[in-house]
């Protein structure tokens, strides 16, 4: 009876006002609308330009400085094209992963907390919106932002820089796989930060824990290889091995699984935690 009433009501609305009701959506009610708004916040404002400039300067600018300007200033630092290529690849993947992760943490640390504190989360959740959709749009919109700007844009520019430095066009497929590793690492930190945002009320806690995981993991991995089984700290090495056509480090599979599994787990925890949030 309730279903018939709902169908009848929709038909009445459509006839009366000419408006077509949104689909039920179920567990993802409101997802499309929110995602459109979040992507609009990324790419429909100056935000994407600002982010593009920042990442091009930090990642590609630093690369250019080390690969082109330093050798020009110090001839003894000049290298052969092959050495330039290896150095350049190492620079790019290390910079993109390290700075990209920091950047993703900074960009995403506010996504949930800001909405909770400003009251906009309560406003949105008073509409027919599922809480899961709310969290997933935050994840997906920042993933797309990271994909296009931090991995995509800097990756394209880095490819050009490496070509200029070495005179060689890099094989595309391994390069794309390397970009995929960057993206996987960014996803790890993005999902971590989103999860922390659903747990804590203070930005400091989110930033502190996320940066602590990043830097602590990198430092600890210098002293014990065990860390590599729990945190994605060896992605640059794997990317470099891919590009050089060398056998992948033994840690490669566990790194991929670790990053992927943690990302899924963080996302699930975020979804479950946010479902319990009260406004």
């Amino acid at each position: 009876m309730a279903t018939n009433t709902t169908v009848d009501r929709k038909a009445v609305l459509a006839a009366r006002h000419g408006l077509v009701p949104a689909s039920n959506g179920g567990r993802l009610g409101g997802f499309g609308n929110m995602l459109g708004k979040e992507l609009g916040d990324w790419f429909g404002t100056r935000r994407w330009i600002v982010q593009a400039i920042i990442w091009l300067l930090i990642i590609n600018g630093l690369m250019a400085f080390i690969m082109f300007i330093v050798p020009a200033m110090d001839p003894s630092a000049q290298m052969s094209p092959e050495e330039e290529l290896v150095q350049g690849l190492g620079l790019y993947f290390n910079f993109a992963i390290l700075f990209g992760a920091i950047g993703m943490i900074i960009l995403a640390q506010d996504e949930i907390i800001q909405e909770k504190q400003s009251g906009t989360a309560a406003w949105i959740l008073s509409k027919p919106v599922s809480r899961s959709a709310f969290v997933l749009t935050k994840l997906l919109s920042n993933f797309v932002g990271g994909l296009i700007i931090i991995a995509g844009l800097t990756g394209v520019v880095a490819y050009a820089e490496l070509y200029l430095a070495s005179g060689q066009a890099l094989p595309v497929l391994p390069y794309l796989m390397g970009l995929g590793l960057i993206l996987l690492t960014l996803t790890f930190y993005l999902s971590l930060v989103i999860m922390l945002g659903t747990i804590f009320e203070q930005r400091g806690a989110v930033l502190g824990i996320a940066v602590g995981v990043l830097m602590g993991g990198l430092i600890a991995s210098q002293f014990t290889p065990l860390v590599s089984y729990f945190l994605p700290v060896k992605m640059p090495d794997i990317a470099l091995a891919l590009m050089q056509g060398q056998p992948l480090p033994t840690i490669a599979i566990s790194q991929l699984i670790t990053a992927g599994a943690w990302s899924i787990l963080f996302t699930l925890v975020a979804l479950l935690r946010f479902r319990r949030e009260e406004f």
Partner: protein
Amino acid sequence: MNSSNGNVIHTQGLSKAYKGVKVLDGLSLEVPKNSIFGFLGPNGAGKSTTIKLLLGLIRPSGGSAMVFGQDITQESLGVRKRVGYLAQDPRYYEHMTARQTLRYTACFFYRGPSDMIEARVAEMLELVGLEAKADRPIKGFSGGERQRLGIAQAQVNYPDLLILDEPAASLDPMGRHDVLAVMEKLRKYTTIFYSTHILEDVQRVSDTVAILNHGRLVAEAPIEELLAGKGSSAMYQVTVKGRAGQAQKRVESQPWVQQVLSAAEDGQTSWQVCVSDEDAAEDQLLRLILEDRDLRVKRFGRKTYNLEEVFMSIIEGSN
């Protein structure tokens, strides 16, 4: 699904506690369809808590509630599809314009056609008088403008239930007047459940009033009953001219008269007659007074209260 006998909202023992402290305690009320239901109470009484429970923004600690026959915890999405909500302190994305905000809100309920959505948005902007500022970022809006935007976004989806938390707050008298006029106009299309501190507004537009204090429902009645003091001892106000002593004794001797308070001024005597049996009073009180042919009755009628008097006496009584 049980439609709760034509009631849009039906709560049964609804409670909410934070760390053992009850902020809402066993609320049971019913809101009839197409009524304007006023929800009163001092600050911290539990009004906003009740509203948030109905919308699924917080979870109940006990009891249950149905909106449109749908459980507020299990079927919250279905409830919110039919509700328009204005928060006490409305918050929006500051970088968005009023038009963008309304469009964004409408798109949670409708997927098109886009020109119809735009038309609806324009209609709402006109309704609340924000056409001139429709394309400015909300960041620069005053409190009153945000409130008006809030009313617009609450109605954009043709809701079956409008939940308004302090709708006239931040509005000047003209704005308040407009809000009340809109509420009156919407009555035939929707049910309105609203909380407010402005008793004058409640008295003007509400069909039923519920009063909350310390998380408990202390009164609920149609507005006329509340103002007539029904449920408590009825009181009649009588003003007579002439020698009223005999008439007063006659009235006081009736078994259904609890008390007669008398005051004389300017040759007239005013009585406040408290009665325990309203039917007997309606039937006999005037006749008893008129038995004295020398007595002139200048005024006779049931005492009506203004809502502030009722509200204060109920709140003080429940404290």
